């Protein structure tokens, strides 16, 4: 694991701020009716996505669920084309077919967000199988929510990856709720990382990895880096990132399942503020630089929105294309 230098740390800061501003704008566009359907924000969880993806090499793979904007941006997808997808435009990353929940980019080995909870886990195992089969040394980072650990796909995928020693980092983003249901009301164990124990024992099969502070980008980076190297050498490992979504499950969630006080407590310890404070403490006179990054992120979001608004709507021809490969 490379110790991140100042430039890298500032890059992470930029990514986190960009994701935050991008999504805040998405929320506005949703209110204005320019983004339709369902919108699930990653606000509050940025440190997990940014730190975990920073732990990967370019040739590694990423796959996640529908709460995918932050993952896509952290993996380097062009904010303009992501925004165009949010608006359902032809210049979107999937030409407007996928929308917010189904971002994807082959070149960056970002195999997508998935709307059916848990459905992508066995796919992650398949991607890892291919890597192992051809001895490519590539690792798959598979992110999922806490809720996803209760569906059968999770259990089949973990077991299979254990038996076949597949190079997967299974990363649970435990934001404490699956929609309106808290972890304790949905899962027999609440320390979700312990679920690894069902699929590994005595150094064989699934490795039980750490439970990490998902609001601390440095810790996420360090721990996931170790997990990635473990997976590359030995096989699957389960990691749990403790985080929190500061917004509702999706837009318009009345949030009756949690208190305002609970949310406020997490706002106060939010990942971006914490990282900013860390940088200010670590580097003298860094604040102007951080302000500059903040301003740049806003500009990038403005440009993305401009680009997306100017992109044409898909046509009937777009609707009927792409059913079969010729």
């Amino acid at each position, binding site marked *: 694991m490379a110790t991140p230098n100042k430039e890298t740390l500032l890059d992470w800061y930029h990514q986190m701020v960009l994701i935050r501003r991008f999504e805040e704008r998405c929320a506005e566009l949703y209110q204005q009716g320019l983004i339709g359907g369902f919108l699930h924000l990653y606000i509050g969880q940025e440190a997990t996505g940014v730190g975990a993806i920073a732990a990967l090499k370019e040739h590694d793979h990423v796959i996640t669920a529908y709460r995918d904007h932050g993952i896509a941006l952290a993996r380097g997808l062009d904010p303009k084309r992501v925004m165009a997808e949010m608006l359902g435009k032809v210049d979107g990353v999937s030409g407007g077919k996928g929308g917010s929940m189904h971002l994807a980019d082959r070149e960056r080995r970002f195999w997508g967000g998935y709307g059916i909870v848990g459905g992508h886990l066995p796919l992650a195992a398949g991607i890892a199988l291919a890597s192992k089969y051809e001895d490519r040394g590539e690792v798959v980072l598979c992110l999922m929510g806490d809720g996803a650990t209760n569906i059968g796909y999770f259990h089949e995928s973990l077991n299979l990856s254990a038996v076949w020693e597949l190079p997967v980092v299974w990363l649970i983003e435990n934001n404490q709720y699956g929609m309106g249901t808290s972890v304790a009301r949905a899962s027999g164990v609440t320390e979700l990382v312990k679920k690894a124990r069902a699929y590994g024992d005595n150094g064989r099969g699934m490795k039980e990895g750490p439970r990490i502070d998902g609001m601390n980008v440095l810790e996420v980076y360090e721990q996931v880096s170790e997990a990635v190297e473990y997976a590359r050498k030995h096989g699957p490992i389960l990691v749990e990132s403790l985080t929190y979504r500061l917004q509702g499950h999706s837009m318009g969630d009345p949030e009756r399942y949690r208190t305002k006080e609970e949310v406020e407590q997490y706002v106060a310890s939010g990942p971006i503020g914490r990282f900013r404070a860390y940088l200010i403490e670590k580097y003298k006179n860094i604040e102007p630089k951080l302000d500059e990054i903040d301003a740049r992120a806003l500009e990038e979001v403005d440009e993305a929105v401009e680009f997306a608004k100017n992109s044409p709507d898909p046509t009937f021809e*777009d609707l009927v294309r792409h059913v079969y490969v010729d």
Partner: protein
Amino acid sequence: MPEITLIEALRQAMDEEMERDERVFITGEDVGRRGGVFRATQGLYDKYGPDRVIDSPLAELSIVAIGIGAAMVGMRPICEIQFADYIFPAFNQIVNEAALIYYRTGGDWNVPMVIRAPYGGGIGGGLYHSQSVEAFFAHRPGLKIVVPSNPYDAKGLLKSAVRDPNPVMVFEPKKGYRLIKGEVPPGEYTVPIGPAAVTREGTDVTVYAYGMMHYYVLQAAEMVAQRDGISCQVVDLRTLVPLDTKTVLESFKKTGKALIVYEDNRFLGYGAEIAALLSDEAFEYMDGPIRRLTGPDRPGVPFAHTMQDFYMPNPDTIADAIRDLAAY
């Protein structure tokens, strides 16, 4: 009579059935404290408590299978699948277990359960929140399937479904949940599973539909009556399995022309069965091709609203199809 929304009618049905029969319970994701994502079960948790309105983990296979097990030993479960698109993890339980239990036990046990699922497009939900899944299940004998198109039927059919001794799937047009309003009488009534309804009498073209498409068909029938003087006989199928062949055939014989509208993919969609029935049993009455207006054969309803609009039949495209057929 008070006008209520389709979703309110469904809620009333569940409330009354739970009140009537203690064996009725509800399970599904966030059906309890949260009252369901569409609010279909709002208030029921407070009224009946966590033992009867049970929040499940995120696990569709189990939501359905627990219902099957409980029904086998006499309970009356209502299992909610939050969106029809999520039903596939439970596909095996539905087609291999629920549909087969009565048959495989030589009539010894049965599975009196309800599976509710909102289906269909038009809300911008995209690929995994817009699907129509009825054809997959209509293919398997042993399951009953109803699709209400208005509040009165929604309440009456759901109540019948709860009381039915067989597994009944209720596919609910989610776009119509709040859009479709109608009169529902106070007090007890049911709508039997089986009979279709003739919702408009006419002489030129017979149009068959169910759920959201029936709502649009009525609008289209009014449009062509006003502008083109075309008289439509409209049949709301209401129950897809078992099909009311008598009403389907009689309505066809009046006009000799049939248009079947469904928003699912065309190929092997539910309407294909209606077409086959008509050509088989009413051949001498045929006065034109049997036409279908459907979603295109594409694997999902894409996200962009323009593509969604092309995908879904609507009152204008239905009216065009009626005009075409009338002119034949």
